[in-house]
Structures are given as C-alpha cells and as structure tokens.
C-alpha cells in the first residue's frame, strides 16, 4: 500500500491512444445516423495521451465520443493530457450553449482530477467553440489556470501548437456541403420509418402519386434543402424552403392537370391545388427546423422567422388539408 500513496494524486488518469480503431469508426457511424444518439459518451475525467510529463499541454473537451475522438486523433504524436468535462454526451458547441461545457464544470473537474498536482504548468487549451459556456478570466481567478482558446477544428491543432496563435481562418466556423449532408443524414434516418408509414397510408387514400408526394416532401425538406441551401432563392430559411417546396410540388400539379383529360377541369384543378397548398408549407417548415443544425443562425433571427411565417404556413396547409378531405369524401381524389 506504500506504492499507492506515493502517487502524486489519488485521482485516476486513464491512458488513451491517438489512433482510432475500427470499433471507434463503427461508433462514429452509429452516432452519425442517429442510433443511440445520446449514448455515445466517454467517462469524464483526465486522460493521458502518449507519455506526458508535468510540463505537457492539457486539452479540454466534452464527453461526446465524436468530440473526444476528433481531439485525440488530431493529436497523433503529441504527448499531453485530455480533460473531459461531463456534458452528458453532448458536443462542445451545443454543450457550451446549454452551459454544461461551462465555467463551473471546468473548475470542478480541475479540482476533482487534482490537475494542479499532475501538471506544474498552468495553461489549458480549450476548443474555441467552448467559449460560449466559459468565462476564461473566471477560470483563472477560481482555478489558477490560464485558458487559451485553440482553433475551432481539432484538425488544426498540430499547426496551432507550433506558435499557439490561430490564423483567422482557424477561428471561423464553416458549413460546407459535406457538413450540411452529414447533419442532414441524422434527420433523414430519424424520419425514414414515419415517412414510409405515412406514404403507405397515402397510397391507400390517394394512390401512387399521393404516396410519392409524401416521400418527395420529406426528402426535399430534410435532404435537398440542406444540400442546396446556399443556392435556393429567398432571404431566409423558410422562404428558401418554400421555393424548394413549390418546385417539388409543381410536377405533381402538372400531372394532375394534364392527366385524364376526360375528368372535369375543376376536379383536375382541385387535385393540382391540393399538392400546391400542402407540399410547399411542409417543406418550408422542415427548412425552418434545419436552423438548429446550422453554424450561423441567431436566436433573434429564428424567432423573427417563426413569427413571420408559421401562421401563414399553417393557414395554407389547413386550406390544403380541407381541400384534400373534401376531394376524398366526394371520392374525387386523383387516382392515376
């Protein structure tokens, strides 16, 4: 028992490698497609990467597997410590917004891990996107550690560590096509089963076209919208989504108008109108919901969009649904 007490600290330090295994990659895939979404967690605490000594740098991250793994895989060949905060399995940026990646948690974790006894240097390197939850000057006052904000992306860390100065480029968030499709994948996976059920129900009510309209609406809102976001006409998310919804609904409306010329014109027009009234507001609503997945929307901006558009979208959708029910009750819903 002599040995145990001779350790400088009673706190546990877990050894971790920089290299990701195939099991890690499988877990990343599951997290990306939304399977066990909140359960991709790392035990909070202190980790040793490589062979760190008392002068080695300390990196701070969240206990979401993707955050932790992005950090450790970027630090290949670097000896250091990783301090994992308890963010309940949420990534750094979202957790900082919620306050779980926060000043209190960081101070508590420094004490619980007895970091002052593990390292003699007094610097912490935090991800820049942790800043909304952390008051750097408070951390210094309360723990004695000076906070240094590293780059937005862990991949830039090796370059950053050469000078401890981030380039302006390293400080900016991006939202590339790959980023947009990556976050869209989760929503598509979550919506897949409900979409297929509704599509099946619509097949029995209105046939193939009604069924296809469900799939086109959902995929337009959840996949095409994120992909085409920068290029869609409109000044905000809802209007961009509405434009896309109109575009998606028009083939359906044209088919309803032109097919079966023996049917009364007003019935064909009614069916066409149904698609035009229902699909665009639904796609616009899904587009509005995408705001939370982006890297640049503000709360006041989104609030303004909600108040401006939601009532109009609801009225339009309501009118479309009433028309749909009327056509169905009178047995005139377009079956082609």
């Amino acid at each position, binding site marked *: 028992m002599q040995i145990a007490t001779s350790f400088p600290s009673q706190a546990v330090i877990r050894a971790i490698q920089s290299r990701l295994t195939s099991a890690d990659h499988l877990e990343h895939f599951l997290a990306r497609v939304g399977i066990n979404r909140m359960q991709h967690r790392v035990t909070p605490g202190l980790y040793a990467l490589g062979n760190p000594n008392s002068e080695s740098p300390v990196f701070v991250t969240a206990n979401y597997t993707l955050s932790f793994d992005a950090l450790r895989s970027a630090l290949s060949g670097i000896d250091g410590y990783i301090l994992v905060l308890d963010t309940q399995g949420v990534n750094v940026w979202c957790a900082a*917004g919620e306050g779980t990646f926060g000043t209190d948690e960081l101070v508590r974790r420094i004490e619980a891990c007895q970091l002052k006894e593990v390292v003699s240097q007094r610097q912490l390197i935090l991800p820049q996107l942790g800043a909304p939850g952390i008051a750097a000057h408070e951390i210094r006052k309360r723990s004695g550690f000076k906070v240094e*904000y590293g780059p937005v992306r862990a991949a830039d860390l090796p370059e950053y560590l050469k000078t401890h100065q981030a380039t302006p480029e390293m400080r900016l968030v991006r939202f590339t096509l790959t980023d947009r499709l990556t976050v869209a994948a989760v929503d598509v996976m979550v919506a897949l089963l409900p979409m297929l059920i509704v599509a099946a129900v619509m097949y029995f009510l209105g046939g193939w076209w009604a069924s296809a309209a469900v799939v086109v609406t959902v995929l337009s809102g959840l996949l095409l919208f994120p992909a085409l976001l920068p290029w869609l006409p409109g000044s905000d998310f809802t209007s961009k989504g509405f434009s896309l919804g109109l575009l998606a609904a028009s083939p359906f409306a044209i088919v309803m108008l032109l097919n079966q010329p023996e049917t009364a014109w007003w019935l064909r027009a009614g069916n066409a109108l149904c698609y035009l009234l229902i699909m665009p507001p639904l796609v616009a609503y899904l587009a509005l919901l995408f705001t939370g997945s982006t890297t640049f929307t503000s709360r006041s901006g*989104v609030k303004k969009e909600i108040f401006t558009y939601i009532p109009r979208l609801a009225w339009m959708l309501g009118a479309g649904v009433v028309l749909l029910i009327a056509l169905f009750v009178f047995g005139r819903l377009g079956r082609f």
Partner: protein
Amino acid sequence: MRLVSEFNTLQYEVEACTGCGVCVEVCPHGVFAMNSHVARVVRPDACMECGACQINCPFGAILVDSGTGCASAMIRAALTGKKQPT
C-alpha cells in the same frame, strides 16, 4: 458610445474596451477585429448571438441576448411552456 446592431441583439461599448482581444479570438464569425488597440465591430450582421464574446469579456463591454438559433427548440419550448435552455 454604445453601438447597437440593427441586425440582432449585439451591443458594444467601445469605451469599456481595454483591447485584450479575447472577443476577436472567440467569435466564430469574425464579427470583431482589432483596430488601434481596441476591438471594433466589423461584421455585425454575421453575429449568431452565441454569447462567447460577452461571457469572455472581462470588462463587460459587450451585451448580447444569447441563445441558440434553433427553431425546433423554440417551438418545443413554446408548446410545452418550458423555458428554453440558453
């Protein structure tokens, strides 16, 4: 002089700035830049109200009604009557 953004809830009091530069470091959209020893707001329209600059400014020079620009969270909060976490 207090600068009030017309695009969002960002406000900035240049007299309180000591030029430490932490706002330039933490902003993910390049809203601030250093200009002869004080910070200046150079891209007010790009602010997403994350609040990183406000919480990290030791001198209280920045004010922003921070929160996440997430429609589903806001709608959920409105429907359940619960307060949205900021």
